[in-house]
């Protein structure tokens, strides 16, 4: 018999580890994918995954069934992702100040004007690389909305619920992020031509 989320939660609240495990396995792929899309890194995604589910484990005994478990879980996921991004950004910027590498300062135009031909450069992957770099520069909330919409294909209504904000706010983040990304993309494409 398949237990509902709420039944699994009640069991887990009473100390049943297998119920907690089953609850995790129902949703953890989504959590990992969101984290992976958001950070574009396996290691970061694993870190976010651990933090999200440890928070769930600690908070589960106080879960009061006022919302769906999935809503609560994805809310934690977006929060952890945003916090992680902010933390990481501070850390990375310190690292960059210490040792700036030449590769990071190279533009796509530099790459494209090397002696190699355009075909050899696998343009698609280069563009992806620069798009991801541009994504990194978005504020965490904008990046979160962009990731959830473009890569994970959630509806605006669902994103608003996850991020505990209005649909209007989500649209605003989305339009701003899209506009910035398009501007960046235009520059990249112009350089490429």
């Amino acid at each position: 018999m398949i237990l509902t989320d709420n039944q699994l939660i009640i069991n887990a609240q009473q100390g049943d580890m297998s119920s907690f495990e089953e609850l995790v396995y129902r949703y953890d792929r989504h959590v990992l994918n969101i984290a992976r899309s958001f950070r574009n890194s396996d290691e970061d995604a694993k870190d976010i995954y651990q933090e999200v589910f440890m928070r769930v484990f600690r908070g589960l005994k106080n879960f009061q069934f006022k919302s769906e478990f999935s809503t609560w879980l994805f809310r934690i996921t977006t929060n952890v992702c945003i916090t992680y991004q902010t933390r990481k950004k501070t850390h990375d910027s310190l690292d960059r100040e210490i040792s700036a590498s030449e590769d990071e300062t190279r533009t796509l135009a530099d790459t494209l004007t090397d002696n190699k031909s355009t075909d050899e450069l696998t343009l698609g992957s280069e563009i992806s690389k620069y798009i991801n770099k541009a994504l990194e520069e978005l504020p965490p909330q904008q990046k979160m909305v962009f990731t959830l919409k473009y890569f994970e294909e959630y509806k605006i209504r669902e994103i608003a619920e996850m991020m505990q904000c209005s649909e209007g706010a989500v649209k605003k983040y989305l339009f701003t992020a899209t506009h910035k990304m398009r501007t960046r993309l235009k520059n990249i494409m112009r350089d490429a031509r």
Partner: protein
Amino acid sequence: MKWDKFIELAYLFLLDELSFDERIELENVMMQDDELKSEFENIKESFEILKESKPQVASERILVNARQTLMRQVRAESVRVSFFRKLAIDVRKYVYENYTLAISGLVTFVLGIIVCYILLIPKSNKQILQPEDRARLEQATKDDVKISNLQISQPDSKNGEVEVKFDAVKPIQYKAKVDDPAIQKLLLASLFNEDNPGARIKSVSTIAQQFKGKEFKYDLQIKNALIKALKTDSNPAVRKEALVVLNKYPYDEEIRDVLLYVLSNDRNSGMRVAAINALTDLQQNGHTLDEAVKNVLTKKAEADKNDYVKIRAASILQEEN
């Protein structure tokens, strides 16, 4: 249609967030305007590129690895939590079963001490001054302040500082009539707190001064203080002075009782003589002596160590009969 509005609708169209009617409306607008249509194509191209840039999905290996790590962490944490919870339950059970009475007694005792401390211990007026408070120290010790109880600590070997504790007492002069409430309060304080018997006698005799005043009002507080001094003061001269002053109060049961107390209990024969003289005076002034007085006088007439007391007691009883 405004340009910004068109862009937003185009975004929503490509993100599959428009209703059927909105889609039709947008398509109609584009069919009528080539510029908008061209822009829409640009946006569409951008969106395709952006979507193609989607990061790779997490592999199964990463997921399995993350699950294993998580479950290890969760088990470690739940063991840690259950250990402390179990320990707390065991301790509570052990205490409840074996030491309930002792612990409740101890708690009551501690609470009692705290309450007594709060209620009974007077707050210290001690001032702790630092070198920067020198002006306050000088102010407190200037003029005719009397310094006493000086205690000096050993100098600190590191910085050479010493700590000095002392009482700085400033004499105060106050002039008023004997029956002034403040004067009476000070006299009573002196009667009960002064170590010097001479000072206590002086206090009682000063209290007696008020009887010379024409408008003297008998003060119950003074009377009670004199009775207490007569019963408890260690110095016979003070007790004697208190008895003399009490004799000036109107005779009542309290005066009678304290005279009988002195007659029965005071080891000083002079005090017993003074007490029996007081009773003699009362009799001569027309006061009838009740049974309680007669009983004590009977005992004194038979067994007092002092012959004067014996004779006077017998004499009073004879006259009374």
